[in-house]
């Protein structure tokens, strides 16, 4: 009920912002605001280390004077701030250029159906209980193995927030959502070499979080498995991206087909619509309306209704990811992707990680990537990696201080398999991905 009242209060502020924009002469405007509350506790070596109480708020407004646009935002939601923020946006719009592509979305595309996506599940947990939970999680990890000898700690975080968005075309909607997580990171040491790894669980509803035991064990297990890691000699070989990092690979693909990259010509997938970008067994689809999922939303960042999408079918690219602006720049229609994809899934095969290792036979299983060595214009890819050397489908030893390199366009074409070990912890859901060949650089 409190949430209902808060929603009404925030919707009133949006209306005030839009009214103020009109009063100051804007021909169109849109505005969004958010209020977040949260508790974050971190424990280390069995005792509490930090307790943070979060409460933040922000509003943003964009105004249009014909085809000129200006924006402003503020952390202050007071009436005085509303006026000042709109004034600041208007002042900037005066100096912006006439941009024939600027403007609000096509009114016909705005969301009109507002079903409940089941995103709001407050967790009534006290700081003391959160501390105890984190301590238990860390204890599990510390007791897992004799080589675990230090800790970065365990955390419990719980956030709830309200987002409201409105524009001068009459769109106004808000919703509440929650997000909770438990994470743990521990260190191990063997023969003077230290390693650290972590694990976490995140969900809209705390009931869907993994148990603290599982998170602690997984963090410790991952750390212990890395002990004794060595480099590899440089070579070319197959590379298996484990599920938790495979989503990053898909993320690079999504970046390359997003409108902003395309109209700026800073994509290695220009003019790729209706062409084969993956092998024919790959399908990418989007499910924005999944109940309770981390990426779910009824509309995009400008109020355009989201819908289930088949982005890649049988390896062929069906659609770019466009906002109203990038669509107009490209002479196309918005696809409701202002702000990105919502619950993007890659079709899974019938193999789990173990079977994929067998499938790979001899090669590199990568479980961690370092650095940002991806060139979005050319697709050239070179990143630091850590993982395991695999022979005859069996893990031989951990490896680190190596890089893996290739070209994304080529890597996507040479995916051999996608596992069914899907990682559901993010907006991109992928299983492990096996790539036919990449260059490894090492000692």
């Amino acid at each position, binding site marked *: 009920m409190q949430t209902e009242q808060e929603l009404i209060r925030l919707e009133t502020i949006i209306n005030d912002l839009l009214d103020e924009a009109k009063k100051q002469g804007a021909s169109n405007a849109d505005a969004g605001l958010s209020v977040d509350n949260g508790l974050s506790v971190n424990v280390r070596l069995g005792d509490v280390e930090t307790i943070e*109480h979060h409460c933040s708020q922000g509003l943003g407004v964009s105004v249009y004077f014909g085809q000129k646009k200006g924006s402003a935002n503020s952390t202050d939601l007071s009436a005085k701030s509303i006026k000042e923020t709109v004034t600041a946006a208007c002042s900037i719009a005066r100096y*912006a250029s006439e941009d024939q592509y600027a403007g609000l979305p096509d009114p016909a595309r705005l969301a009109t159906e507002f079903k409940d996506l089941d995103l709001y599940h407050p967790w009534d947990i006290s700081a003391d209980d959160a501390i105890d939970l984190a301590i238990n999680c860390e204890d599990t990890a510390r007791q897992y193995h004799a080589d675990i000898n230090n800790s970065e700690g365990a955390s419990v975080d719980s956030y709830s927030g309200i987002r409201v968005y409105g524009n001068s075309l009459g769109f106004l909607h808000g919703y509440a959502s929650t997000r909770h997580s438990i994470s743990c990171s521990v260190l191990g040491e063997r023969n003077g070499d230290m390693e650290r790894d972590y694990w976490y669980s995140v969900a809209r509803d705390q009931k869907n979080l993994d148990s603290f035991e599982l998170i602690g064990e997984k963090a410790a297990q991952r750390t212990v498995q890395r002990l004794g890691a060595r480099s590899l000699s440089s070579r070319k070989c197959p590379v298996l991206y484990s599920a938790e990092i495979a989503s990053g690979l898909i993320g690079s693909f999504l970046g390359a087909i997003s409108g902003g990259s395309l109209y700026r010509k800073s994509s290695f997938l220009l003019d790729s619509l209706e062409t084969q970008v993956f092998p024919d067994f790959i399908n990418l689809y989007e499910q924005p309306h999944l109940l309770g999922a981390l990426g779910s939303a009824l509309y995009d960042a400008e109020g355009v209704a989201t819908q289930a999408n088949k982005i890649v079918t049988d390896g062929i690219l069906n659609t770019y990811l466009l906002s109203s602006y990038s669509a107009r720049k490209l002479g196309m229609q918005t696809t409701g992707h202002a702000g990105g994809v919502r619950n993007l899934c890659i079709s899974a095969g019938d193999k789990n990680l173990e079977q994929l290792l067998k499938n790979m036979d001899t090669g590199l299983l990568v479980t961690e990537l370092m650095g940002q060595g991806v060139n979005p214009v050319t697709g050239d890819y070179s990143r630091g990696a850590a993982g395991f050397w695999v022979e005859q489908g069996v893990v031989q030893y951990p490896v680190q201080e190596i890089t893996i390199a290739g070209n994304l366009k080529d890597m996507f074409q040479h995916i051999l398999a996608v596992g069914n070990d899907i990682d559901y912890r993010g907006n991109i859901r992928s299983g492990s991905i096996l790539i036919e060949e990449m260059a490894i650089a090492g000692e």
Partner: protein
Amino acid sequence: MDNLLHLAKQAILVPTGIQESDIHRVMDQLISGTVDDGDIYFQSSHAESWVLEDGIIREGSHSIEQGAGVRVLSGEKTGLAYSDKIEISELLAATKNVKAIARQGQNAKIALPSRPSYSPLYSSVNPLSSITDQQKVDFLRQLDSRTRQLDSRIEQVIISLVGVQEHILIANQGSSLVGDVRPLVRLNVSVIVEENGRREQGGMGGGARSDYNYFLDQDRAFSYAQEAVRQALVNLEAIPAPAGSMTVVLGSGWPGILLHEAIGHGLEGDFNRKGTSAFSGRVGERVASSLCTVVDDGTLVDRRGSLSVDDEGTATQCTTLIEDGILKGYMQDKLNARLMGVKPTGNGRRESYACTPMPRMTNTYMLPGESEPEEIIASVQNGLYAKNFGGGQVDITSGKFVFSASEAYLIENGKITQPVKGATLIGNGPDVLTRVSMVGNDLELDSGVGTCGKEGQSVPVGVGQPTLKIDALTVGGTDV
């Protein structure tokens, strides 16, 4: 320093009607009982950004961020609460929240700190109003058209201009308020060039704790544009990079990101207090060749990474991290300094009032050596010359770090030959500097573009170094 305090009070306290006596009242409540330390951090930031794209001023935005964070320290524990409203009632509520942390705290108060002495390292002029909005957009349009005239292969030019003015006020236990006024400007030019169907990018930017006139001085803005175009055109000719361990010569300036990743993070006090860094417990040991002396210096005038006073009210300083190859010490904030029994080094930084301070770098660089850069190149039979870099990352526990070259060349028989495609370089922090066999006499600091991320908090930093020769480093190309 009194002037800074006056300006900060004017910006933060006067509009909210808060008196200094009100702050003392909150501090008294905060520090009472079994806590070691506490502070209140007030912040008011005004920022703007302008983006030119496809030849037009596509968008501009203005943002205001203000609030206050209340922190209490007890033993190894930290409590933080904050509010976007700068009001005494909010501060009292936050205080009540954070005091819960001290329930099992020790009663071991440290000696009252005296008020730090510091002088302003940058002007308190507001960069946002240093030139008019009309001048800003005219400047961007002109820069765009001058850039496009540089080469017919230029397809796209994107220029962004950002300015920030931040007022800070810190209330510490037992000392009067500390204030700072921090300007920050940044300009970035990125271009895409195309030739025979091949497209490549180039980018260059710079910035300082100064105002927009910094970019007009000596036509600096245009020099960024020229550099961006030069890089993009070089990349049009690039062949696949080699893969494997080889001799690497790093250029001067921004390639100093090596020091930031390979050793800087590993020498932050928190990781060393906890024993989680590959450098833990190694003070006094050799971690670099005797040619290497590395400092973290927050006191450089007008630099992006500099602070007159850190976010805990400690004056910044020049801290020697490595001297003639020997590890000398760590970078500290107050919490970790107290727990390790050393003095804070002015490295306590926070992204904003909503975040807890941590030991962070300021400007990290290596002092110059004696070799001529040409002599360094000439000494390499076969290797890689890496002149420019993108970002980097480190695992402070294993010591493994990466940084990605965006402009690099083969060295063959002592000569720079072909440009190669970008590649990630990977190494091990505790031993990479032991392989430094030549240090140039050409120390250069970066152009003022660095942003460092740690535990989700971003802060502006600087790096620098002379030309360096590293006898063996793994280069992550595709040419195996």
